[in-house]
């Protein structure tokens, strides 16, 4: 039985166990129908031209992990940003782990999707926000049909959330192969500010496929900073679907750090529904072996006087492949839009590949849009300059790569994340730099 059939038949079982109301029942049924019609995306689709899911769909994934698995904090501490105080929402094989988590209902809700879906007091919120910004494409639909757990965050208006929120998904490898479909809903009301860190981590070499959906609503003048740390092991694949709906004068940024995983696809969509909105999408990708990382971004400028900034850096070694597909749509009404997009890549191996494709659809006439993509090698004259100062070739290369990715790091607001990313990069490049950028 192929994965699609397995998922469709599993859905029948899953649906029978649920105690959904009519609303959720309809949402799920529409979603599974959409998935059934469209199936998994293939390379024939323009948006999937350079990314094939074939190799990861072959595994015999278990859809519902059978046993509950516990892990000790000491074993997984290194995957947390642990040197700062934070809220934590932690899942093990898709199930909530209360002993690793630190949630709150004190003036705001930093808790579980399962609670939000089942408790009457959240009903209205779910109806207003759940599945309202996610697209109806096949993979988000598949997630919608099966969504049962994830993070639910609601920050009411005028609140500065003092501590960052960490969302961590661990897979224990107790099943030979597992498919996970976390679903996060984040609503940040007027004038509020929240910082979120998300990470998916497999703890063994067994195959994992995560099809994650995160919906974020940044209401009027809200500020949302989201950091995705993708440094999973080489048998774990991730399809990350993140949708952000911004209201007027809100500021939202997503930084995606992609170092690990077998195949990673980031679908990141921003919708600007209001004036004077600011959106930032930044990423650093450093991969090797046969890794594949695909950034597929959309910024939809719907109303006037808004800005978007995209800056993605990639360093590709060995047989790795990278994809950057960045689409900017500027509606006719969205005059005075400032939209910037840059994608710079360095190939450090003859066998590495990068496919980069900017797509601009501009219907307004008074806009500033710029885009640029570069693909290059490391600068030879800079290499000689550094080596003549006693910095060996490997370290010189690493230093240049740091330098190359540094302007993406400069907008990271949490110093501990900066330090962690620097450390991961140093590790990845096999050097000890002796300083933090």
């Amino acid at each position: 039985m192929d994965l699609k059939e397995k998922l469709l038949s599993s859905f029948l079982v899953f649906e029978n166990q649920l105690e959904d109301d009519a609303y959720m029942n309809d949402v799920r049924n529409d979603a599974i129908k959409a998935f059934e019609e469209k199936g998994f995306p293939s390379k024939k689709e323009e948006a999937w031209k350079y990314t094939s899911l074939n190799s990861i769909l072959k595994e015999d994934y278990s859809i519902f992990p059978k046993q509950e698995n516990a892990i000790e904090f000491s074993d997984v501490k290194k995957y947390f940003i642990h040197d700062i105080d934070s809220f934590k929402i932690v899942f093990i094989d898709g199930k909530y782990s209360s002993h690793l988590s630190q949630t709150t209902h004190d003036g705001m809700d930093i808790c579980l999707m399962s609670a939000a879906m089942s408790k009457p007091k959240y009903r209205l919120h779910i109806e207003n926000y759940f599945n309202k910004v996610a697209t109806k494409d096949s993979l988000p639909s598949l997630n919608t049909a099966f969504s049962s757990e994830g993070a639910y965050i609601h920050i009411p208006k005028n609140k500065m959330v003092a501590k960052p929120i960490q969302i961590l998904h661990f897979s224990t490898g107790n099943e030979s192969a597992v498919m996970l479909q976390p679903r996060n809903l984040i609503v940040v009301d007027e004038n509020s500010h929240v910082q979120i860190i998300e990470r998916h981590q497999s703890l063994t070499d067994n195959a994992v496929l995560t099809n994650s959906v995160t919906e974020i609503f940044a209401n009027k003048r809200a500020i949302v900073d989201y950091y995705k740390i993708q440094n999973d092991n080489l048998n774990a694949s991730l399809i990350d679907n993140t949708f952000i709906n911004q209201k007027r004068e809100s500021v939202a940024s997503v930084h995606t750090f992609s170092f690990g995983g077998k195949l990673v696809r980031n679908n990141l969509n921003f919708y600007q529904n209001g004036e004077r909105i600011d959106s930032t999408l930044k990423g650093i990708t450093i991969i090797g072996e046969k890794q594949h990382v695909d950034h597929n971004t959309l910024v939809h400028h719907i109303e006037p006087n808004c800005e978007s900034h995209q800056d993605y850096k990639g360093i590709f070694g060995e047989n790795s492949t990278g994809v950057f597909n960045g689409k900017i749509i500027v509606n006719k009404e969205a005059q005075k839009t400032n939209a910037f997009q840059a994608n710079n890549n360095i190939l450090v191996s003859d066998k590495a590949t990068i496919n980069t494709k900017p797509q601009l659809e501009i219907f307004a006439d008074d806009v500033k849009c710029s885009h640029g993509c570069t693909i290059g090698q490391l600068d030879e004259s800079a290499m000689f300059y550094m080596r003549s100062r006693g910095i060996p070739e490997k370290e010189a290369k690493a230093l240049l790569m740091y330098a190359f990715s540094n302007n993406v790091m400069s907008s990271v607001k949490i110093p501990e994340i900066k330090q962690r990313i620097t450390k991961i990069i140093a590790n990845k490049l096999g050097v000890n730099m002796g300083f933090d950028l």
Partner: protein
Amino acid sequence: MLKIENLHASIDDKSILKGINLEIKAGEVHAIMGPNGSGKSTLASVVAGKEEYEVTKGTILFNDEDIEDLAAEERAHKGIFLSFQYPVEIPGVSVTNFMKTAINETRKAKGLDEMPAKDMLKLIREKSELLEIDRKFLSRSLNEGFSGGEKKRNEIFQMAMLEPKLAILDETDSGLDIDALRIVANGVNKLKSKDNAVLVITHYQRLLDYIVPDFVHVLYDGRIVKSGGKELAHELEEKGYDWIKEEVNA
């Protein structure tokens, strides 16, 4: 310290150096002058270990060791320093971090531990004062947006930090106004001792008023065609290079 014998070097099969002989002893200052295109910068790059150049004949001995097979960083670890004519901009790496990396990598190569942060700061403070460098300057990206003079001063600052045995200054005077020239020369002179040596490569004599050479060599068409004392530099300044060319071609 440095002994170059019958050195031939080429780039992309184009022969640039055609039999250089030069010996520099500890405590000496040598100057190499010559018209544009005579091979001055090539000589500097070949000694520093730039891989694009191929040594086709001859040897370079540094403290009696043949350095032909050594990488640029290994030559640096042995005490060869090149002040670049055109220092490379490295956005995203601060001057301080660059120097920390260079010093600690050199120490590592010598089997020493990293320099403690406190000592590093002290050294940076001391050497930046010597070159009259503002502290703010040190946190800027290396050479990025620096003026010509700032770049050159930064080169000599790096030299002061690394304390090389042999410093090769490639056209360090170009792009310097008179104040910067004085600061740079003063820095070089303060670092001079009986144990190290300086090779100044220049087109003009004016730097040599400040860094006074013991020997002056004229490089023309890949060969040293004339050597003398510091008075040779003055002669070249007065008469230009044409008489040298005529002498050689005669």
